[in-house]
C-alpha cells in the first residue's frame, strides 16, 4: 500500500511520484492542472511521502504520520486556501511566513500546500517570495494552480513546475461505477465533468448539482427576449443564493461544535471571530462556484452546437443531443455561438475577480440574447 495508490492511472502523477527521490528534492513545487487533475491529492501524497518514516519518499499510507497527513490533520503540513476571492497578504504572513520560521513540530519536513495559488493577489505573492527564495531547512512548498498566467514570473521561476493531466474520462466513469452509480449516469457525468472527478462526484451525489445542471441547460432555449434574459439572470443568482443558504446551515453546526470544544466564555472571542470571518468568505466562494457552474454549462451548450456543425465528435452534453441537433440546423450564426461561448468564459473570469454578481449575470444574459438572437433560432425543436 502506498499514498500514491489512489492516484494510479494518472501518468503525470505517476511521473511526479518517481521524482520524489531523496537526493534531488526540490523545495518549491508548482503543480499546474485544471480542477480535475487531482493536484490537491498529489500534493498531499507528496507531503506524506517526504515525511513517512516507514517508507521514506514513498509514503506507506498506513502509519500515523501518513494517515494524519491524508486526513489534513498533521501539525507540520499546512493547507492554505483562499478564504474569499483572494489569498491576501495577511493570510500569507500568518499562515505561511510565521510558520515557516519555526522548526518542524514532529515531522522531518514542514510542508505548505497553497491551494489555488493564483488567487494570491500580487502583494501576497511578493510577501511569499522571500520565504520561497530562502526557505529554512526542512521546508517544502507546493503551489497548486489552474491558471499559471496569474502567478508572478518571479514565483514561477523559483518552483519546479509540473503539468498534470486531467483524469481520463474512462477512469472517472470506472470510479463512479465502482462507487455504485448507474452506468448511464456515470458515463454522462464522466463526459460533462471535463476531467474533474470532484465535479463528477458532486453531480452524481445527493446534492442539487444534477438538477441545477438541467436548469442551466434549459437557459439557452428559454432566452427569447431581453426581458427573459433579466429574469433568467435573477433565477441563476437565486439558485446560487440557495446554495449559500444550504452552506449557512452547515456553518451553524460548526459554530455549535466550536462552542462545545472551547466553551463560550472569556478568551474565545478571537476564535469565534476568526470562524465568522472564514464563514463569510466561504459563502462568497460557494456563490461563485454555483455561478461558474452555470456559465460553464451554458458555454458548453453553445460549444456543443458548434461541435455538431463541424462533425460532432466531441459533444459534451449527450443527454440533450436532440435539442443540440435542432440548434445546429437552425439559422444561428457560428460567429454568434462563438461570441456566446467567449462571453460565458469572460463572465466567469470577471466573477473570480470579485465583479458585482447580479450586474455581471444581467449583462451576460443580455449579451447572449443579442449574440444568439431568438429569431435566428426559428425552427428549433424544443
Amino acid at each position, binding site marked *: 500500500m502506498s499514498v500514491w495508490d489512489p492516484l494510479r492511472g494518472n501518468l503525470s502523477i505517476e511521473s511526479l511520484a518517481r521524482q520524489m527521490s531523496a537526493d534531488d528534492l526540490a523545495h518549491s513545487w508548482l503543480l499546474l492542472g485544471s480542477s480535475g487533475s487531482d493536484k490537491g491529492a498529489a500534493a498531499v501524497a507528496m507531503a506524506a511521502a517526504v515525511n513517512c518514516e516507514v517508507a521514506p519518499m514513498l509514503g506507506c499510507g498506513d502509519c500515523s504520520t501518513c494517515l494524519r497527513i491524508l486526513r489534513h490533520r498533521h501539525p507540520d503540513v499546512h493547507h492554505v486556501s483562499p478564504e474569499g476571492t483572494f489569498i491576501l497578504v495577511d493570510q500569507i504572513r500568518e499562515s505561511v511566513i510565521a510558520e515557516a*520560521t*519555526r*522548526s*518542524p*513540530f514532529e515531522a522531518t519536513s514542514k510542508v505548505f500546500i497553497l491551494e489555488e495559488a493564483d488567487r494570491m493577489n500580487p502583494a501576497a505573492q511578493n510577501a511569499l517570495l522571500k520565504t520561497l527564495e530562502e526557505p*529554512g*531547512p526542512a521546508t517544502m512548498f507546493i503551489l497548486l494552480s489552474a491558471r499559471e498566467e496569474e502567478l508572478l514570473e518571479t514565483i514561477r521561476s523559483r518552483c519546479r513546475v509540473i503539468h498534470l493531466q486531467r483524469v481520463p474520462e474512462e477512469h472517472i466513469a470506472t470510479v463512479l461505477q465502482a462507487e455504485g452509480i448507474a452506468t448511464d449516469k456515470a458515463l454522462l457525468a464522466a463526459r460533462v465533468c471535463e476531467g474533474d472527478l470532484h465535479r463528477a462526484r458532486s453531480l452524481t451525489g445527493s446534492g442539487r448539482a444534477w438538477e441545477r445542471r438541467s436548469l442551466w441547460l434549459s437557459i439557452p432555449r428559454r432566452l427569447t427576449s431581453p426581458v427573459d434574459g433579466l429574469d433568467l439572470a435573477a433565477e441563476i443568482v437565486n439558485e446560487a443564493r440557495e446554495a449559500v443558504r444550504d452552506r449557512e446551515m452547515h456553518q451553524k453546526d460548526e459554530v455549535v461544535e466550536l462552542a462545545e470544544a*472551547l*466553551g463560550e466564555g472569556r478568551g474565545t472571542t*478571537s476564535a469565534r471571530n476568526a470562524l465568522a470571518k472564514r464563514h463569510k468568505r466561504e459563502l462568497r466562494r460557494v456563490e461563485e462556484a454555483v455561478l461558474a457552474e452555470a456559465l460553464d454549462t451554458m458555454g458548453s451548450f453553445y460549444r456543443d452546437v458548434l461541435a455538431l456543425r463541424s462533425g460532432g465528435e466531441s459533444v459534451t452534453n449527450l443527454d440533450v443531443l436532440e435539442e443540440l441537433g435542432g440548434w445546429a440546423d437552425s439559422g444561428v450564426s457560428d460567429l454568434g455561438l462563438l461570441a456566446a461561448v467567449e462571453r460565458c468564459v469572460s463572465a466567469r473570469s470577471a466573477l473570480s475577480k470579485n465583479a458585482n454578481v447580479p450586474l455581471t449575470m444581467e449583462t451576460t444574459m443580455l449579451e447572449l440574447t443579442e449574440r444568439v438572437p431568438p429569431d435566428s433560432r426559428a425552427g428549433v425543436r424544443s
Partner: protein
Amino acid sequence: MKFRCERDDLVGAVQFASRAISNRATLPVLSGLRMEATEDGRVRVAATDLELTMETVFAAAVDEPGKAIVPGRLFGEMTRNLSSGQVSVAGTDGEVEIGSGRGRFRVRSLTPDDYPALPIEDRDDSAGVQVSVNATELAAALSQVVRAASGDESRQILTGVLCELEIGSVTLAATDSYRLAVRTLEVVGGPEEQRKVVLPARTLGELGRALQGAAGSVTALVKENLVAFSVEGSAELANEWVIGSRFIEGEFPKYRQLIPDSYPNTLVVDRERLLEVTKRVGLLAQNNLPVKLQLAAELEVSAHTPDVGEGQEVIEAEYEGEPLVIAFNPQFLADGASAISSQRIEMQVGDGLKPAILRGERGDFTYLLMPVRLS
C-alpha cells in the same frame, strides 16, 4: 482509561497544561488536553499549540491505563468547580465521565488519532545536548531578557530570544532593534561546540511563569527541532513538569559587535530613584516623545510635550566625563532599570547619539539602549 485521584491534584495539572491551549489553533484537536494514565500510578496531562507544549504529571490510583483527549476549556471549568475530595475519571469511546461525590458528568472527547505526537515525550538525550541550570537564576535571567524581544511579527527572528550554549554557560540575548538585553548564566554541562538556538519569547515567558517558586534545578534538553525544559518533582510528583518549545529558524543579528568595549562617560545612580523619576517625568513625555537626561555632577531628567505640559527632576549621581545630553524612550529606559537587580546602576554613554549601556553591580547583565535623536 480509568483512574481515581484527589480533586486538587487534577485541577492543578489541568490548569498548568491548559496554558498551552491556544484559541487560534489550526487543528481542532489542539483545543483538547491529552490525558494519559499509566500502570505505575501516574497521570500525564499535556496540551500544545504546536509552538509551546506543556505537560505535567500527578499521582493517581490507575484502574485502567489508557489515553483520552478531553475538551480543554470545558474540562478545566468542570474540574475547577468540583468540590474537594476524590474524583474518578473514566474515558470510553468518544466520552469521558467524571465522578465526584454524588455527581456524574459525561463530556464528549476528541479523536485521539488526530492528536499530534508530542516530541517532548521522547526523552532520549543521545541526539541532543543536556544542561542543567539553577531554577531561580533562570527565572531571573528570563525576566531580564524576554522583555527586550520584539512584538513585531514582520521580523520573526526578533520575536525570539537567542540562546548561546557552551560548556558551563549560556548567554541569552533579545533585541527589538531599539534595545538589546544580554544575560550570561552558569550551567552544568553543555556542548563541545557552541550551539545557538532562538526560542520564541512567548514560550520563555510561560517558562518564567512556571519557574516562579520553583527551587532546585531545571534541565534543558536541546534537540534538533526543539528544546524541552523539565523540572523533577518530589516523591509525590508535585510540581513535576516539562515545557517544550520549537525554535525560530533564521540568522539572529550579530549583537556582540553592537556593544562597545568602553565609553568615556560613566554615570552611577540609585536604581530605585532612577526608576521612579523616569516614571514620574515620563508621564509628560507623550506622543512618543522622549525623556531628556542631562548628565553632569547631578542627573536631571526632563520631559516636555507641547500643549500638555512639562516636568523635570534632579537625581543625585556620581558622574565621570563631559557634561552631555541624551534622550530615551521612557518605557525602554524604565524596562532596563527594572531589569537590573542591584541597588546602583552604571550608565555608560559615548555621546548623545551612540547607544548607552546600563549595567548592574554584577557583570552578568548588559542592557544596550538606543537614544532618541533630539531635534
